[in-house]
């Protein structure tokens, strides 16, 4: 499939994806409500930091950190691994493979098309955060801050999506990669800054986490949103993030291409 063909098909795929996300909006809403873990952690850390700040974080900082986490989670989530697992098991992947555009584009556009709905959820949370802690702690302070934040969100989404594709593609080699996905999720929860700012971890552990992809899925966009870094540090971290995007991209596409060769659907 040529690049031109993909470009021609993309608007239609996005439109279909958007229509789907509107059709299942109630479901989407329940999904949103079920990502309440940042709120649990917010309350917890508020209790911990009631008398004295923890590291650099006081009660107010925890509120802005975890509300930002909630918003970023909405923007960067992807569920392609579950979808691929399901379609491989059911054999319906065959239908996708018949189309002239790679299924990977379809998964990506379905994901991206849900974006407007997710922004609708994320923006009020950000506004609440501004109301609670003030604009100087809740959102980036400079224009470059906003630009870097948007870049980081995009990178975070790309890593999440590509990791999903890579793990989903593994289901073409084994029966199911659901358990694998669960292990990935556990590592994500523990290492990404989703449950606590990574800054609070001991220095040795933090050095390891800096090299893993998880922090760049969640922690980095959140830190940029709450202006935790100066420009040089932020640029350095962003470079690492996009290195991961590239690495994940190569891994995901290779696994997918090798995997699809092994795919034999019913009657195939």
């Amino acid at each position: 499939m040529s690049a031109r063909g993909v470009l021609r098909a993309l608007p239609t795929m996005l439109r279909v994806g958007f229509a789907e996300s509107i059709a299942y909006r109630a479901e989407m809403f329940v999904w949103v409500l079920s990502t309440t873990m940042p709120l649990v952690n917010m309350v917890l850390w508020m209790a911990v930091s009631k008398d004295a700040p923890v590291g650099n974080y006081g009660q107010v900082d925890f509120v802005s950190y975890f509300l930002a986490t909630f918003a970023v989670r909405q923007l960067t989530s992807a569920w392609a691994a579950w979808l691929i697992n399901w379609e491989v098991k059911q054999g319906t992947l065959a239908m996708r493979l018949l189309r002239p555009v790679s299924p990977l584009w379809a998964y990506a556009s379905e994901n991206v098309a849900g974006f407007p709905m997710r922004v609708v959820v994320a923006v009020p949370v950000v506004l609440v955060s501004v109301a609670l802690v003030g604009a100087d702690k809740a959102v980036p302070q400079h224009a470059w801050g906003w630009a870097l934040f948007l870049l980081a969100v995009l990178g975070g989404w790309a890593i999440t999506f590509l990791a999903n594709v890579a793990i989903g593609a593994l289901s073409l080699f084994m029966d199911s990669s659901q358990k694998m996905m669960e292990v990935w999720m556990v590592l994500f929860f523990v290492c990404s800054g989703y449950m606590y700012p990574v800054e609070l971890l001991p220095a040795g552990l933090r050095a390891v986490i800096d090299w893993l992809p998880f922090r760049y899925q969640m922690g980095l966009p959140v830190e940029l949103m709450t202006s935790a870094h100066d420009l040089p540090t932020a640029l350095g971290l962003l470079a690492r993030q996009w290195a991961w995007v590239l690495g994940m991209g190569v891994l995901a596409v290779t696994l997918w291409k090798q995997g699809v060769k092994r795919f034999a659907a019913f009657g195939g």
Partner: protein
Amino acid sequence: MVRRYLRLLGVQLKASGLQALQYRADFLTEGFTSLCWVFTALAPLFVVYGRRPAVEGWTFGESLLVVGWFTLLQGVLEGAINPSLTGVVEHIRKGTLDFVLLKPADAQFLVSTQRFLPWRAFNVLTGLGLFVYAFMLLGRGPSPLGVLASVLLLGTSTLLLYSLWILTVSAAFFVVRVDNLTFLFSSIFDFARWPSSVFKGVARGALTLVFTYVIPLALMTTFPAEAMLGRLPTVSLAGAVVGSALFAWVARRVWIRSIGHYTSASS
């Protein structure tokens, strides 16, 4: 009557057991994933207690007991309650609930015992392991009376979880698509990882009230942990027993109402 139902339960358990034995590799993966999830429950605990010796009057060892109860109940929820009730939702959507309703036994009993995932018992073992470790850290054993009370509370917690589930499933008769609600429920259950008094400082204690009376999460994990430590007031114990019985009664009423609301596939 009771004997007939006990035999029926035996049959259903045996069927699930045989099915589980078919997939022996599940034993290992189940164990591994259960350990992984315990790790996510413990990670924030380590981070928090690396900074503070105690949070709202709970030390590390004591909070570990709460996580232990959380893990144990998660095993009960995912092994015994979740699978059968997800089955009900499937029945309702496909219209096959008719077959269940036609059988000469109580429909609620039939649907709640239709499927168990025995390997999830691994979570229960992990929970027990956490208790042992916690008491080693605390440097003392639980009081015998406390253990007795906590076993009683295990019963009430299971009853509460089950009733909450029956209520959720009853909603399926009206809105059909509730498989998402299971995720919602598990994410609310996340709050039960922490001693309920941790939430005291927020919104003037409103959260603690909600988690004790509206969604009784405190009753499920904090109360048993306190009982093991021998500091649960008798009034709270009595309240938990009466409260959960009342809750179960309400759930039963709602279930009967919802069944009446059910229009089968053919009508």
